[in-house]
C-alpha cells in the first residue's frame, strides 16, 4: 500500500482541503505505486462473469464513437473488423485468451528445485564445519553387539523384536 501520511480517516474533500489550506492534499498525493479506486466498478475478465460491470474502454476516441453510432443500426452492415473492434472496446480478453495456459509452472518448479539445491549446499557446509563427530554407537560392530544384548534381554518377546528371533536355531524366523 502506498504511504499516505498518518491520516486516520480518508483523504480530505475538495472543500475541506480548501478550508485547511491543504491544496496539495487533494488529487496528486505522494503515492509510490499505481492505485486502483476500489470503490468504483472494475473491469474483470472471468469465465464466470461473461459481462463485466464496465466496458474495458470507457474513454472513446472519435473513431470509436462513430463506430458505436453505427452499432445502433443493423449489425449486418458492420464489417468483420468493425465487429471485432466493437468487441475489443468492450472486452480485453476473449474466452480462449482468458483460458490460455502460461509457462509459469516451469518457473515455479525450477525455483523450488533451486532452493532445495541451495539448502543441500548449506547442509553440506554444515556437515564439514558444524556437525560433531558421528557417535561410535552407529558403527557396525557396536550395532551387532547392541542387537545381541537386546535379544539376550528378550526385548519385546511377544510381538516385537525377540518374537522374530528363533532362539533354537540362532537366526531370524
Amino acid at each position, binding site marked *: 500500500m502506498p504511504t499516505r501520511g498518518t491520516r486516520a480517516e480518508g483523504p480530505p474533500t475538495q472543500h475541506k482541503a480548501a478550508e485547511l489550506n491543504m491544496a496539495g492534499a487533494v488529487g496528486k498525493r505522494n503515492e509510490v505505486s499505481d492505485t486502483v479506486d476500489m470503490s468504483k466498478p472494475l473491469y474483470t475478465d472471468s469465465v464466470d462473469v*461473461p459481462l463485466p460491470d464496465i466496458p474495458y474502454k470507457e474513454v472513446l476516441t472519435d473513431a470509436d464513437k462513430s463506430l458505436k453510432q453505427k452499432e445502433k443500426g443493423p*449489425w449486418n*452492415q458492420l464489417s*468483420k473488423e468493425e465487429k471485432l473492434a466493437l468487441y475489443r472496446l468492450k472486452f480485453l480478453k476473449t474466452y*480462449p485468451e482468458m483460458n490460455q495456459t502460461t509457462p509459469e509452472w516451469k518457473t515455479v518448479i525450477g525455483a523450488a528445485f533451486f532452493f532445495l539445491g541451495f539448502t543441500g549446499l548449506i547442509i553440506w557446509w554444515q556437515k564439514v564445519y558444524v556437525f560433531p563427530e558421528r557417535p561410535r554407537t552407529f558403527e557396525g560392530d557396536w550395532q551387532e553387539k547392541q542387537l545381541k544384548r537386546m535379544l539376550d534381554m528378550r526385548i519385546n518377546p511377544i510381538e516385537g523384536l525377540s518374537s522374530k528371533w528363533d532362539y533354537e536355531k540362532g537366526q531370524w524366523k
Partner: protein
Amino acid sequence: MFRAAVRLSVSGVRSLTRAQPGCQGVLATRGYSHGKQETDEEFDARWVTYFNKPDIDEWELRKGMNTLVGYDLVPEPKILEAALRACRRLNDLASAIRILEVVKDKAGPHKDIYPYVIQELKPVLEELGVSTPEELGIDKV
C-alpha cells in the same frame, strides 16, 4: 429438455450427446427439500420472459447473463435468443458475441453442445447480424 449434459450430482452423470432436443427431462436445478420443483419448461420460460423485457437495461442484461451462467446447465437456445435480442435492443453487439463465447465455455468437455446451439440460433444470428466467434477468428488464441 436439452440441458447441460453433465450434472455432477447424486443423480449421477447423464450424458446428452445427441444433437436432437426433446430428450427425457432432467431434474430441475434447485435442490429444495420441500415444495414444488420448478420444471425445466418453467425455468426456461422464466428466463425467456426476463430477457424479453422490452425496456431491459444494460445492468439487467449483465445481471441476467452472469446469473444464468452460474447455473449447472447450458441455457436453451430459446433463452439465448431472447438474450441476443435484448443485446440488439441495447445496441450491444460485443455482448452478443460474448454470450456465444460463454455458451461454448459452459458446455465444457461436451463438444457437441455448442455446434447444436449455434445451429439452432442460426436464423436469429443471421437476422440480427451477429457473427459467431469462429467467423471473427476469436475462437482461437
